[in-house]
């Protein structure tokens, strides 16, 4: 079992998997509770545009994908706050635009690119020490923001109460969007652009059905995110199948099992019971 840990690429992949599992599942609780599940998809496709530009320019794709995705994340948040358009509409616009740019960039690059395939579907073989260093920096930055969990959670519960409490709600919208963007970009090597959104959503959704409190949801989400990344990576190596897909299938199985085993309350979004004769 542990013989595979002798391979340096597997060591990189496991450490990257644990860190990315932590990052995505931590931010995932805000993504899920703010109704931004589609944001992960939008930013992943923005990352595709950035990766494609990096490949076209023959630059390490990560160096282009990170700023490209951050700009898209800021653009989504800015347009969402400035217009009355629904979040999914704004994300849909940026999603399509980034994807279209990515397609054009790849078309302009002559010759087949293995790199693009690795980014699309994720590959544990593709995780380099540089990738690992970037993931470690993002993890360190995230650990520094943990004291902000309380104010982010408060504004997630009720944005207006956050504003009345004089919290920097708009600044935090941008901060969270940028951190999610960076998490998405650094996760694509392990999970792949196509599946990275699930990495943000499934552990948090599983945490939600298990927990009665937001702190509990955050803890469960992180444990599930880290464990499924580990189990998924090991299974992917043993079965010789793509890493990202294996992790997401593992998460899906755990979600389904816990959903069936956990006693569910009223349907989310509906009152448990109504007032006598009232609404």
């Amino acid at each position, binding site marked *: 079992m542990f013989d595979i840990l002798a391979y340096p690429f597997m060591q990189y992949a496991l450490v990257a998997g644990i860190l990315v599992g932590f990052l995505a599942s931590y931010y995932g609780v805000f993504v899920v509770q703010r109704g931004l599940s589609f944001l992960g998809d939008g930013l992943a496709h923005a990352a595709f545009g950035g990766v494609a530009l990096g490949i076209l320019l023959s630059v390490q794709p990560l160096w282009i994908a990170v700023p490209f995705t951050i700009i898209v994340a800021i653009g989504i948040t800015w347009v969402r706050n400035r217009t009355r358009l629904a979040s999914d509409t704004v994300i849909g616009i940026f999603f399509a635009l980034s994807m279209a740019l990515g397609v054009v960039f790849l078309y302009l690059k002559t010759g087949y690119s293995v790199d693009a395939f690795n980014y699309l579907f994720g590959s544990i073989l593709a995780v380099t020490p540089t990738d690992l260093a970037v993931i470690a920096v993002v993890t360190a930055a995230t650990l520094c923001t943990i004291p902000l*969990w309380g104010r982010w959670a408060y504004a997630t519960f*009720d944005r207006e109460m956050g504003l009345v409490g004089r919290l920097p709600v708009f600044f935090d919208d941008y901060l969270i969007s940028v951190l999610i963007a960076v998490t998405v970009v650094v996760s694509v090597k392990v999970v792949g652009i196509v599946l990275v959104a699930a990495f943000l959503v499934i552990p948090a959704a599983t945490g939600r059905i298990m927990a009665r409190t*937001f702190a509990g949801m955050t803890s469960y989400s992180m444990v599930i995110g880290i464990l499924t990344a580990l189990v998924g990576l090991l299974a992917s190596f043993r079965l010789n199948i793509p890493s990202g897909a294996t992790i997401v299938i593992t998460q899906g199985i755990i979600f389904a099992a816990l959903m069936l085993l956990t006693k569910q309350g009223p349907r*989310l979004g509906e009152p448990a019971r109504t007032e006598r004769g009232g609404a």
Partner: protein
Amino acid sequence: MQALEVEKLSVRFGEQYILHDVTCGVGEGAFLAVVGPNGAGKTTFLKVLLGLVKPASGKVLVHGKSPQEMEPKWLGYVPQVKTLDRSFPALAIELVVSGLRGRWPGRIKPGERKTAIKALEQVDAAQLAHRALNSLSGGELQRIYLACGTVRKPRLIVMDEPATGIDMVAQKTLYQILEDYRKENKSTVVMVTHDWGVANHHASAVLIINREMIAFGLPGQVLTNENLARAYGHAGHPMTPIIE
């Protein structure tokens, strides 16, 4: 010093006036009911007091300070229960502690727990402390929100249609709790309501608006057929003890 001073307040979104030339003022411990039809600018008026909307012109002072300068602990905000995101996993006591901290609590400290339970006792809801918010009825939830809004003993409590979505018995309990709290703590209450009867029975001052100020004064003086007809376009209402 007045607890609340509003002078020639106007709010504009683009070219359109949402509020125009509103003037009113109440002392400490007053209960101001803000009455008007849908779209009259009542919620905008509350948002100005909360410091969330900046006036286009005019003066607004709460205990001598502009809303933006006010310390958050002075303000108790009680939103409508229908705004609750029922998918958010939370216990009643966490909501009350969030009112105390101004942040969402992870681990609740013993001192915070004691203060929150006391606030819940005051609204007759201590038994609900460890219930999930999404399992509470509208009336129960409104009392939890009231405990959250009052836990820091604010000088100004702002309530946006607190009776929406709760039955008559729960409404009566809510107003009684609010009145007891106000008398005990000398806090000023500003409440938006659709119910002229509640304004007449509980408020010490009433402001009637419909984009502009229709009337301001004692309930018995301003809740007249004439003023209500000006605000609503008619004066008939099933719960209206209108002063002829």
